[in-house]
């Protein structure tokens, strides 16, 4: 009797609220995971500990994330979403020269990742395991990258400096992604105060890279 009533009550609850609860739980798990990664490192933090810290049953975690790597993947998904949203919100930036736009994209990414710098290197290292969903060739990673690549492609296409089609044009977003990974690696090893060296590197290499792109465009 009582069980039927409970089920009926569940049906009356608005689907929106359920979604929101799911979101809240997902975020709680992510936050707990990030806290633990910071304290114990990525490899040593266990899903059991994450569940405890998030205040959910261990079984519940698996409803949201199959593996620990998936938690990291979700984190990167949010990073990309955040950066795209932040960029689109900034009217001045959308009118800026492409050099500044590309700088700002990477800068926002690094900004977002700064609190997690300590264990990020470890995550990237783990990503090299072939079975990992973080692996660049995994389906999940590729899905994540597509959003990013699409975003970068839009930037190239809507910028007067680079909108004209060029030989390198179609590859430009991929090249940029690889470049970003290079900058990320540089940044992770950068122990200059405030990671100032990365800023210098980013500015100079973007200038050089863009002039190469433009040179290729002229040559084509």
């Amino acid at each position, binding site marked *: 009797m009582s069980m039927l009533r409970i089920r009926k009550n569940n049906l009356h609850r608005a689907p929106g609220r359920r979604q929101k609860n799911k979101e809240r739980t997902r975020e709680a798990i992510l936050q707990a995971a990030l806290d633990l990664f910071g304290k114990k490192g990525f490899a040593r933090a266990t899903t059991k500990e994450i569940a405890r810290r998030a205040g959910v049953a261990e079984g519940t975690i698996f409803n949201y994330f199959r593996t620990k790597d998936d938690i990291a993947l979700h984190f990167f998904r949010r990073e990309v979403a955040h950066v795209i949203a932040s960029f689109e919100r900034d009217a001045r930036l959308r009118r800026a020269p492409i050099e500044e736009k590309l700088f700002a994209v990477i800068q926002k990414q690094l900004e977002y990742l700064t609190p997690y710098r300590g264990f990020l290197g470890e995550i990237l290292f783990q990503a090299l395991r072939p079975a990992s969903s973080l692996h660049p060739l995994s389906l999940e990673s590729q899905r994540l990258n597509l959003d990013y690549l699409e975003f970068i492609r839009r930037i190239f296409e809507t910028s007067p400096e680079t909108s004209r089609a060029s030989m390198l044009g179609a590859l430009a977003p991929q090249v940029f992604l690889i470049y970003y990974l290079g900058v990320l690696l540089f940044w992770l090893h950068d122990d200059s105060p405030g990671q100032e060296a990365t*800023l*210098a590197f980013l*500015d100079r290499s973007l200038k050089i890279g863009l002039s190469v792109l433009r040179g290729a465009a002229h040559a084509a």
Partner: protein
Amino acid sequence: MPPEGTGGGWKRLLRMGKMGAGVAGSYFGYLAQMAFLDTEARQTRGREGRARVARKLRQELQALRGPVMKIGQALAMQSHALPEELIAELTQLQMRAPGMHPSLMRAQFKSALGRFPEKLFSEFEPEPFAAASLGQVHRAVTRAGHKVAVKIQYPGIREAVRHDLRLLKTALGPALLSGHFPKAALKEMEARLLEETDYVREAANMALLRQALAGLDFVRVPKSHQECSTDKVLTMSFLEGLHLDDWLARKPTREEKDRLGARLMEMFYHQLFQAKAVHADPHWGNYLFDADGGIGLVDFGCVKRLDPAYVRRFSPICLYTGRADSQQYRGLIEALFRGEGLKPSRKTLEVMSGFSHLYRRLYPPFPKDEHRPVDFSDPSLLNDFAEHCTKLLKTKGLLPELVFVSRAEVGLYNTLHRLGAKVRTSEIVRRYLARA
């Protein structure tokens, strides 16, 4: 193939510069262009041709965006292999750091102070209103409501300077050992260059000069805001005023120009004899002139502190009424060098004695001539002085103090010339000599 010796040191340096390196790039990579100059200079005939090439090179180097380049001046000090005209050009060389777009500027600010500028100031302009030698300057208003200027340094410059100084030391190796390039000059240069990348040092220089020049009511020195300043960001009170050209465009009267000239001269000698700290790079871009003829100072990257004993040994050389070739005069110069544990070479003595004639024109030494104003609009005065300075800078075993004070002097006379001011120079100097 160029002959070995100091010339060879150059070539090696340029080649290493070309290989470039360092995260923020290498200054000397830009100098690599000079490799072309040598062949061109040799092929070009006559002084005019060489002067043209030198000017062209300076323009090209100016157009290159790169960090500040005072090394050109120091290198020019000792490069006998280079044509004179090039040296004259190089001593004027001053490059600027690349500009920063708002995204880079904000990132650099945050990297230095931990928060974005909008979070620290009540108002902050994202576009700079002025360029600085190593960065750019933004207008802002503090939480407390003070109008300030915020100078932000381009990232990675100190590392680029350090890297290039290492290269320089390596390339000059043999010249340093043989004494062709004085170690003292290299050390001095190193200290000054690194000093310029350190805005904490600059804030200290600014405070020093602010106190030292407090006695001059026509001088305004900004106050630094420590809470919003680091070694890469300097926040200071905003000074109103116009740069020299804009001030002149308002068509000031003769009296105003002469009064400003006298004040500039007073400020220089006050620094030399009283404060014993010299604003060692007085490019007229560092002055702001206001409607009352007040002088605002900006840019305290290079402030040379002088040893009081040095100043004491230096003062008898000023307003010297005897003969320049006299034993007594030579004795004074030798005493100056001896105080630093050095002995002036014959060539140095010769050149410095030669200065004495120039100084007579600039500072009539006899009391009867004292009230006659010196007309700085006379171009020959400035040219002769600059030429003589160049000669001095080429001699070996030069005192670093002399280098900086000479540079400051040339800067002063340059500004006075642009003003076309008539100044009672000796009166001013005598007043300061009496107090010293």
